[in-house]
């Protein structure tokens, strides 16, 4: 097999899933339309915001609709990497880019004026408010990581295609909710969370993730036999696989919290400086 053919193979989805492709394509299309709309009306979006958004979408596509997904199904540590992208990295980048004004501007007027769309939004609001209560958001964020790693649940999720998709979608959606709560550009007066609460939230989710990561890393037993049952992508010692997975759950995941705290602190300081300058 030629090098080109092989690399093309790696770019193809392992399990073609219209939902992931539609999600990535639709959000990219809406965003680009929004960018065009903004440019026409002379509003500036800069380079970094669109860059961050597209990088996030590209990351989601890569881990779900390329050969990466194959490896994620047959190697524990790659699976942990997939969830790191779906639950932390990609939603982090997307939320940081604050894409709503652009996405809304990019939505065709026909869709925006579609009868019933306001009713749907209104109906979803109480549920959204509930999920975005800081305590519930933190619990959900950590709880979902633990839930899908319960050995019995993990076993079924890896065996059944339906549960596997449910697992990955739940990670992405929860990631988007959580990081949106953290990076919401609105101030606390306008409905966003106060900066203190955001920082507390970010720090609160660190210890449970460290604990879980350390447990996986230092455990002497193979906790997830589903990778023996299904076979690994290549012969790798089960404990090595588990340790690598533990390290991914532990270190980069918690570093995302630290990074987010720095960004929030930066905003806080920026706000203070602004006050002194003008007030």
């Amino acid at each position, binding site marked *: 097999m030629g090098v080109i053919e092989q690399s093309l193979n790696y770019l193809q989805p392992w399990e073609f899933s219209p939902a992931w492709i539609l999600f990535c394509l639709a959000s990219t299309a809406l965003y680009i339309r929004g960018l065009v709309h903004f440019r026409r009306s002379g509003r500036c979006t800069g380079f970094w915001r669109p860059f961050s958004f597209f990088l996030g979408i590209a990351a989601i596509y890569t881990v779900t609709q390329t050969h990466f997904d194959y490896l994620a199904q047959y190697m524990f540590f790659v699976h942990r990497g997939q969830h790191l992208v779906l639950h932390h990295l990609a939603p982090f980048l997307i939320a940081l880019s604050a894409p709503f004004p652009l996405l809304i501007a990019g939505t065709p007027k026909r869709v925006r004026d579609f009868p019933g769309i306001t009713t749907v939004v209104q109906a979803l609001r109480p549920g959204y408010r509930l999920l975005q209560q800081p305590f519930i958001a933190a619990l959900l964020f950590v709880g979902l990581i633990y839930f899908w790693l319960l050995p019995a649940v993990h076993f079924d999720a890896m065996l059944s295609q339906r*549960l596997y998709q449910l697992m990955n979608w739940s990670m992405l959606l929860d990631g988007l909710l959580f990081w949106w709560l953290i990076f919401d550009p609105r101030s606390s007066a306008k409905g966003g969370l106060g900066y203190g609460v955001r920082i507390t939230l970010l720090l609160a989710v660190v210890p449970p993730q460290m604990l879980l990561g350390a447990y996986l890393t230092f455990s002497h037993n193979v906790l997830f*036999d589903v990778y023996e049952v299904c076979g690994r992508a290549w012969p790798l010692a089960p404990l090595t696989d588990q340790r690598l997975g533990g390290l991914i759950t532990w270190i980069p995941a918690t570093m995302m919290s630290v990074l987010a705290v720095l960004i929030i602190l930066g905003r806080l300081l920026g706000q203070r400086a602004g006050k002194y300058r003008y007030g």
Partner: protein
Amino acid sequence: MGIKRCRILFLSGMLWLVGCSDPSWQTKDISGLMPPLKFELTNEEAQPVSEADYAGDVTLLFFGFTHCPHICPTTLAKLATVLQALGEDASEDLRILFVSVDPARDDPATLREYTQAFGPEFIGLTGNEEALQALTRRYRVTYGYGEKDDKGQYDVSHSNAVFAFDRNGDAQLLIREEDAQEAIVADLARLLAN
């Protein structure tokens, strides 16, 4: 919406999640999690075979390779003991399909020689990469090859579990390495009785 309705919705959601598994099986119940048996492979006589050739029998599906040092011989030997415990009737209605994922070294003759050691119910199957991938992908299992040593030998990673299908070809059980022999005998007897 009343609290009661919420609760019913929640409970049925949880039931859907756990896949309504039947607790009376002693090995892992996979009905509903996995699709029915379907394959197109080559048998020990180098003839093309499909699931239709084993219709009406209870079939066990196991992936491995004949150079396998531990898992394959242990699993197949364990199944041979299980067969003995099940009695003579079982050997007429139970087929154990040993699918080699190492077709480069396992030709039909090698496979025949290998499975003969375990009993007439054991059937060696293999296929080209495409056929093997279609089957392994269907059961969400995989395999991979390690680096070759000086003698050209290499390790193969593969699934260590046995998939059990009922007489209709529907996936019913997953037998794992640590499952006790009595549990396997009891479950297979139940599958054969249906």
